[in-house]
């Protein structure tokens, strides 16, 4: 029964190490995140001349939503490739004939993807929030929210990647699968952050977000394992 824990753990380290060797893959999402948030004030700046009010205030209002959309868009395209390399190299094949159950291996891969994809975003998020006019304290407090929401996005992305593995026109199907699943995460995440900044009751929003992520945490490894079984036949 020892293998049940050691094999997934070893897979986790393998994936993290593999990404670390090729940091361009790992940091691509973070660079995109920075780029997008930097462009928001610049883009708004042009339109704000015509007396729309206080530009700073507007920026602060849309900041949580912008940050969440940017996190989502930085995560999901990277998840698209989650199983691609493994499928072509034959690693996926060897994973399927490992004594460890496939859903556990999927969980290990998802955890590694969270470290590789989400952690860099969580690290730069406070800086970008401050750029949008939010207080440092508020941004540090919402770091946990991003980590949690990011896990949700990674789970959704993994599921979509597994379901579309080997399919023609992967990109389109991916988007169709991801959109309805990622939307609630975005809504609850952004509203939790809104409440946090406004100083309102955050607990309800956080609980909803956590509940969603927990459901996905159970669902995604199982669905991914089954979908890969079908795709690899």
């Amino acid at each position, binding site marked *: 029964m020892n*293998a049940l824990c050691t*094999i997934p753990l070893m897979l986790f380290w393998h994936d993290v190490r593999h990404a670390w060797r090729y940091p361009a893959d790992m940091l691509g999402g973070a660079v995109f995140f920075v780029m997008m948030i930097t462009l928001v004030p610049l883009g708004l700046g042009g339109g704000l001349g015509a007396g729309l009010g206080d530009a700073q205030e507007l920026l602060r209002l849309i900041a949580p939503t912008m940050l969440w959309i940017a996190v989502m868009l930085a995560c999901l395209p990277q998840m698209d490739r989650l199983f691609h390399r493994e499928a072509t190299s034959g690693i996926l094949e060897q994973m399927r*004939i490992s*004594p460890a159950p496939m859903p556990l291996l999927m969980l290990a891969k998802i955890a590694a993807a969270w470290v590789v994809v989400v952690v860099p975003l969580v690290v730069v998020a406070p800086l970008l929030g401050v750029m949008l006019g939010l207080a440092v304290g508020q941004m540090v407090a919402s770091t946990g929210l991003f980590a949690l929401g990011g896990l949700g996005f990674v789970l959704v992305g993994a599921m979509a990647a597994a379901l579309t593995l080997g399919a023609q026109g992967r990109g389109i199907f991916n988007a169709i699968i991801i959109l309805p699943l990622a939307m609630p995460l975005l809504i609850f995440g952004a509203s939790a952050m809104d409440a946090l900044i406004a100083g309102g009751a955050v607990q309800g929003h956080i609980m909803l977000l956590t509940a969603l992520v927990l459901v996905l945490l159970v669902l995604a490894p199982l669905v991914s394992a089954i979908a890969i079984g079908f795709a690899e*036949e």
Partner: protein
Amino acid sequence: MTAPRLAIRDLTMRRDARVLLQNLDARLDAGEVMLLRGKNGAGKTSFLRGLARLTPLESGAYSINGIAPNNHNLFMGQFVFIGHRHALGAHLSAIESLAFLVALAGVRANRDALMQALAVMGLAGQATRQTSHLSAGQQRRLALARLVVMGGEAHRLWLMDEPFSTLDEAGRAQLTTLIKSHLQQGGAAVISAHDSIPLPAHQTLTIAAENSKTHHLEARKWEARK
């Protein structure tokens, strides 16, 4: 251990509409080799993948060391599958890739054992090189090195899909030695090849080409000749 290494009962296998095997009965005992023959596309790979439970089989039953495939945890420890694809992480070094593959199969090996396996396969100097920088033949040797590491696990049935392809003369000799010592320890192997293999096969399973519907299993008892 009285259970045969591989026991197949009434196995029928289909790929798309084509029947690859019909009502196959076969048995492979310790120390035996089954050679899998057939033209390109005949279904050798499908058969091997089917035995490894990577593709579903149509009907019938089989077991490895008496263990049925539905016992996932136990069954997956009964064989090694060496496919066309080497399952190497592109950005990792040779030794890291080997360690990963061995660990994924649930076998513990320390660094010395891994280094020794690389040396046996003639890759001692490549241990820290990135796998994507190795040549096709070297990558194949690296994939085969896990057989050396798992040498202690004699009960495992080796399922090998054209293992001799892309290997040079020395590599073929090395692999032959490996397989022979596995057989001597009581192991068994199913090997697919489209030309002859450099070791005697106890059974030859020929998978029929497009038109004819039957396979052909020829068993030779080499022990009887000795």
